[in-house]
């Protein structure tokens, strides 16, 4: 066990709340974050059955403003921002010139000439520097990450929870949409999105309000079986849905086509950074594919970097792996050579020198019954 050092670790505005609740804190990038409170299994089930709340204050918020902001972002990002009406968002990628993934993010159009980018904590500074370097002169870009705290509130009872917090006069926005409650006198942004496969929202508020919002959510959620949830459950929940994690499943060495995420790339756009490589990848196919897999036996759970085999030949490497709390079986994602990427392919995962059988599956690995 490695002792957690406080040196050079950023704390979210909810750090004290996590410690007070007895969370186990771990380093995560530059941050110190809760990995779990009551236990990963318990928190995972709370989100699948009731509702759970995650501190996502570490995530980055970048704001682009100006008459040409939409046109400019369309050249920076893979998805088509021109399709965004005010109050809606989309999942998208920030690529380098060779089509490699710098970050995956959600971009919202918050006003006709204003866009909010919610980016991964560990990539915030890099994303901002990259965008700033490519910025057109007639628009403004600001890194607002330190101004905002954020919570992900996820689970089938999220609507009930919000009714008890905000009353009947506020409706949650539809899927992928965002509302700003400033008009109702509250400094709160609510986006209907998430990283768990359940109904849910991500909310953003001024840093100073963080503890108040967190405790209000936990208090009103008590009757609904709410649990504070850490990074551990966040990982098992997202992996059951096959949502990629940047730094594990995504990296500058891989492009979105290889990752099976071409749906979020609009190749009809005439110009965006990385486009040429992606057109090539689409036309000629990629050498490797990111695929979900599931273990067959009750063996040890797969982990990142375990090798993947078929008929005595190594065909790839796992990028994510865990024991699925919902399926009670080992699951993961791996890059495998394209000829072996078809769902149903029988594979083996090498774990400490021994091979255990598994199968390549379709997304998602977990479907609500």
């Amino acid at each position: 066990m490695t002792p957690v050092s406080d040196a050079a670790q950023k704390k979210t505005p909810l750090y004290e709340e996590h410690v007070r609740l007895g969370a186990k804190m771990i380093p995560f990038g530059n941050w110190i974050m809760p990995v779990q409170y009551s236990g990963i299994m318990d928190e995972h089930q709370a989100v699948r059955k009731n509702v759970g709340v995650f501190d996502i204050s570490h995530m980055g918020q970048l704001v682009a403003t100006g008459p040409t902001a939409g046109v400019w972002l369309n050249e920076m990002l893979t998805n088509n921002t021109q399709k965004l009406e005010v109050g809606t968002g989309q999942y998208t990628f920030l690529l380098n010139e060779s089509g490699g993934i710098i970050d995956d993010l959600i971009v919202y159009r918050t006003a006709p000439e204003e866009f909010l980018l919610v980016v991964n904590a560990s990539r915030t500074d890099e994303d901002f520097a990259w965008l700033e370097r490519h910025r057109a002169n007639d628009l403004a870009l600001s890194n607002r990450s330190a101004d905002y705290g954020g919570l992900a509130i996820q689970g089938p009872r999220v609507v009930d929870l919000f009714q008890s917090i905000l009353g009947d006069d506020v409706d949650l926005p539809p899927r992928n949409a965002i509302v700003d409650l400033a008009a109702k006198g509250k400094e709160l942004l609510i986006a209907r999105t998430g990283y768990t496969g359940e109904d849910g929202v991500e909310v953003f508020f001024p840093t100073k309000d963080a503890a108040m919002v967190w405790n209000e959510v936990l208090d009103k959620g008590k009757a609904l079986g709410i649990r504070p949830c850490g990074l551990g459950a966040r990982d098992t929940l997202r992996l059951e849905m096959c949502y990629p994690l940047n730094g594990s499943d995504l990296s500058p060495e891989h492009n979105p086509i290889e990752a099976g995420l071409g749906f979020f790339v609009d190749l009809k756009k005439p110009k965006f950074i990385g486009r040429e490589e992606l057109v090539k990848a689409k036309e000629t196919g990629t050498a490797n594919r990111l695929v979900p897999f599931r273990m067959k036996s009750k063996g040890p759970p797969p982990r990142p970097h375990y090798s993947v085999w078929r008929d005595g030949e190594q065909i790839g490497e796992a990028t994510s792996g865990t024991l699925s709390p919902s399926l009670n079986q080992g699951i993961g994602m791996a890059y495998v050579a394209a000829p072996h990427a078809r769902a149903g392919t029988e594979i083996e995962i090498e774990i400490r020198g021994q091979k255990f059988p598994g199968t390549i599956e379709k997304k998602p690995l977990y479907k609500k019954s």
Partner: protein
Amino acid sequence: MNVPDDLFYTESHEWVRQEGENARVGITDHAQAELTDVVYVELPKIGAQTEARGQIAVVESVKAASDIYAPVKGTVVEVNKALEGNPALINTDPFGEGWIFVLKMDSTDDVKRLKDAAAYRKAIA
């Protein structure tokens, strides 16, 4: 955190109960709390010989795999098969039903080199 007085401890958070010339081994309450939900245990093979501090078993939580080390030199004479069906015994009863293996010690003097309960309490404080 529970640290029974009648056991010996390692810096890597294994406990040892001396039973004549045998040593029963598990991981401590502190270790199971740090690891969290144990979902898989790779048991050693009966007859396996090990040096002190040799890697001999693996305990996996949802998050990660952790190596377990032999506290003393010896030969594995018994393993806890119950953990194959119910690895969570390590969480619910780390010093009892959650034991992992039994070593026949090459020398019973070796346990004296381990930490006693007071020293282990200090180590995890």
